[in-house]
């Protein structure tokens, strides 16, 4: 297991690994998985939460952007933007997670992987109508008019606030707006071999993601002034994401 370390989002110039036509290539397959306290996270199952509370998730998703393989100080662009939906109501699907297959990766040894969580500022200036129907950014359900921003991630569910077995409070934590874009890097040796597939797991532990988040008093955040809890969520990406091969 390797940690994923959040980076300051600054524009710095890095070299690009160019892909020559006759270079041998392999495939990188990323398996994004939601876990809760280390166990595969199935929606519509109940888990212990802060104090006496119990939590049940109904929807888990996020935009993953600017995915890059890192080699020294150079990077290889893999994917611009992907909507990673981790809402699985059965265990087998939750264990398998969301698979992102990236073909035609130049063979070689890489030092790690980098990606952003959310929609990077340049793309976040746009609107769903600017994209064709195949793009995740064309989804109007992921655009929030009042923020002039895409919704970067959705974490929805219900809370048993009294610990009495009744899920009495619905919650929807949606992150968004440029200030809440986060990017990070994980150092992990990745070897891409000709004609072969290299698998990598990206685990997101929602218990750690919601660490310190007061859902009970802020079951929703939809005004720009009320970002206290969602800022905690995006800052928790560093402690909740781990990488493994």
């Amino acid at each position: 297991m390797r940690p994923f370390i959040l980076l300051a989002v600054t524009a710095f110039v890095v070299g690009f690994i160019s892909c020559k036509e006759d270079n041998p290539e392999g495939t990188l397959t990323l398996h994004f998985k939601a876990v809760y306290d280390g166990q595969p996270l199935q929606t519509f199952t109940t888990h212990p939460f802060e104090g006496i509370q119990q939590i049940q998730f109904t929807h888990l998703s996020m935009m993953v952007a600017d995915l890059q393989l890192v080699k020294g100080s150079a990077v290889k662009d893999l994917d611009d933007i992907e909507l990673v939906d981790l809402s699985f109501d059965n265990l087998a699907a939750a264990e398998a997670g969301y698979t992102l297959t990236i073909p035609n990766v130049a063979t070689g040894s890489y030092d790690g992987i980098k990606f952003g969580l959310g929609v990077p500022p340049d793309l976040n200036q746009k609107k769903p109508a600017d994209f064709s129907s195949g793009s995740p950014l064309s989804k109007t359900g992921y655009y929030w008019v009042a923020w002039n921003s895409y919704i970067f991630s959705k974490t929805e569910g219900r809370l048993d606030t009294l610990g009495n077995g009744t899920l009495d409070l619905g919650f929807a934590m949606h992150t968004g707006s440029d200030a809440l874009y986060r990017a990070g890097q994980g150092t992990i040796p990745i070897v891409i071999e000709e004609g072969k597939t290299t698998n990598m797991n990206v685990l997101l532990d929602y218990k750690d993601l919601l660490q310190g988040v007061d859902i009970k008093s802020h079951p929703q955040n939809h005004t720009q002034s009320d970002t206290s809890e969602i800022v905690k969520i995006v800052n928790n990406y560093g402690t909740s994401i781990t990488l493994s091969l």
Partner: protein
Amino acid sequence: MTVDGIRLGRKLFYDPILSVDSTVSCATCHQQALSFTDGLDRSQGVAGMTRRGSLSLINVGFHYDGLFWDGRSPNLEHLSLIPPEDPIEMAETWDNVELKLRNHPVYPTDFRQAFGIDNVSGIDRHLAAKAISQFLRTIVSGHNSRYDRFVRGEIFLEENEFNGYLMFFNIDPSLPDAQCGHCHNAPLMATNDYFNNGLQESPDLYSFPDPGLGAITGIASDNGRFKPPTLRNLVFTAPYMHDGRFKTLPEVVDHYASGGKESPNKSSFMFNLVLTESQKADILAFLLTLTDSTTLTNPAFKNPF
């Protein structure tokens, strides 16, 4: 899309030739004067009532994550093949429709102009569906509503409409969040997503009277979820919801204000909104700004016969 393709599609849309007894056309259940719905709880086909109510076809070309209330059709070309062979809606067979079209005095010319076929045997269901889809994609509505003119900065909304707008999209933190914009987002006032908006009560994920999306995907947590239809031209599209259970818009707003009926996957956006009567009236006033009646009289969408 071509002019001739659209012209042919419009004729087919309005022609009862697609039904077994020449009594029902697409337009029977999708009437221009009713923003392409039919005013019924459930639609009347050649052989009785359909399972669910008709859907408006305005801006349908922009719905790309599934068509029908439950998303069971991926695109218009696929969908247009379905009603003629639906045993309740039109109860015909495409084999027979193809014969009727090939032997028709005018359609062979129309098909030749639209698709360049050189023989009547080239007339088939797929070209017919293609033409109908081309026509459907032209049914675009929005430009002329008060809401759109307001967004373009051409007019101001009345105070009550504006209040409703602020609550609909949760723009003003001092007003309650009516939650609507999550599921009915601009510009379509729909989303290409599926939700359980609390219409059906169910103790678990398996007991919804109409499972909606879940019956298509086979995923339990999709049960009870439906596509949010456009809220444009609501004044003409009553009754509301997939089973037409609400006859008026105030009933719809009351439903949302109350948070709806309980079930495990009811959306987190559905709960008692604690709205005053005047706030409900403001939301209603905003909904009416989404009216574009020019769509209902646009000659390009009229019955060509």
